[in-house]
């Protein structure tokens, strides 16, 4: 029923256009109605004059009927709306000062709201770039009622006893020096227990994930560089994965997150632009090392 009413409004709106044709048709329709009535009256034996007079009386005023139909068709509501709109536009044009202030206020309001919401969305609502972000939680220890990082012994104990978590993996931050032919730089890194990528469920972009035994002291000769670092500093070239720069290390490239830009270069030499790696959420480090849990803290 509401749909019908909506449809009727649509028809009424479109009735605003080709108004003249509709008016002509209406006049013709009413005229033919009148004539038919007159003819019927004639047939019942009235004089021509009387027939027409009676028909007109019985039908009510012709113009009034037309007006009634017009208002039903286009609708004064629609016409009033258009008139009000035109009036509003005229007023705005007449007072540019007021108009610009109003527009500016609206623009600022909309802009600020958008900006704030973008930040709120990114920090609170946007899912983490992992296959099952709703199953990932951060586990903290507590010191003086405040969140604190977990000691290695606690972590091992938790992992040993925990039955609620599918995986319980730990990581810690650090910095490492990376030297290429062109330059040396300090890179932010993360040391992590080998199961980390199995936990997040993100596949390596190139190469392979850490093996469990690589988390033991002496076996930690593997490195995963983030896709971001690979793309920014090494031009996404597979040759950069050769371990010449990291003689003892095996290199893999970590998961590529959605929306991450890729910078390609023809030769596999390191790009010499920038130096500092930007730290972004969900991709905090340039280098990821497997690490025995005991060394984390």
């Amino acid at each position, binding site marked *: 029923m509401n749909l*019908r*009413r909506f*449809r*009727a409004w649509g*028809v*009424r709106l479109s009735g605003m256009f080709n108004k003249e044709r509709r008016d002509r*048709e*209406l006049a*013709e*329709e*009413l005229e*033919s*109605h009148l*004539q*038919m*009535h007159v*003819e*019927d009256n004639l047939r019942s034996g009235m004089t021509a004059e009387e027939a027409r007079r009676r028909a007109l*009386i*019985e*039908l*009510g*005023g*012709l113009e*009034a*009927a037309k007006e*009634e*139909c017009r208002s*039903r*068709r286009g609708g004064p509501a629609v016409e009033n709306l258009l008139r009000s709109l035109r009036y509003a536009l005229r007023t705005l044009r007449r007072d540019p000062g007021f108009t610009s202030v109003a527009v500016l206020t609206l623009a600022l309001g909309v802009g600020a709201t958008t900006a704030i919401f973008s930040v709120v969305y990114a920090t609170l609502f946007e899912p983490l770039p992992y296959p099952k972000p709703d199953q990932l939680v951060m586990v903290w220890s507590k010191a003086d009622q405040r969140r604190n990082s977990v000691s290695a012994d606690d972590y091992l104990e938790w992992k040993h006893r925990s039955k609620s978590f599918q995986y319980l993996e730990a990581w810690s931050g650090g910095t490492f020096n990376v030297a290429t032919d062109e330059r040396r730089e300090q890179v932010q890194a993360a040391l992590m227990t080998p199961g980390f990528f199995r936990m997040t469920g993100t596949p390596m972009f190139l190469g392979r994930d850490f093996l469990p035994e690589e988390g033991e002291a002496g076996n930690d000769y593997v490195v995963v560089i983030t896709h971001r670092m690979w793309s920014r500093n090494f031009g996404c070239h597979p040759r950069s994965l050769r371990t010449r720069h990291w003689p003892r290390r095996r290199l893999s490239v970590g998961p590529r997150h959605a929306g991450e830009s890729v910078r390609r270069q023809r030769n596999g030499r390191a790009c010499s632009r920038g130096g500092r790696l930007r730290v972004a959420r969900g991709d905090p480090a340039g280098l990821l090392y497997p690490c025995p849990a005991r060394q984390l803290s």
Partner: protein
Amino acid sequence: MSDKKEIWQGTLALMVLKTLEAMGSLHGYGVARRIEQTSGGLLSINYGTLYPALIKLEQEGYVSSEWGVSDNNRRAKYYKLTRAGRRQLKREAREWEETAAILARFFAPAEELS
């Protein structure tokens, strides 16, 4: 003429739909005449009520119209019921019957009320 009954909008629409169902395709004058005949001359229809009602029904998609030629060779706009109009007629007729039945009970002799 003054003793003829005025009819109100909702019932007029229902009468128009019913008339079109009975007669098939019909012009406005035909509809008016037919309604007057059916009412036994108790109702009179003027343009001021009939055509707005037809326009409304057409806007709502219950009737469709096209130009044609009448019996005595006059150009006239013919209206006919659409499928939605048929459904609407059925629905409104049922509602009307229910209303009438309820009112009838109020005016029935007291002993017939159980």
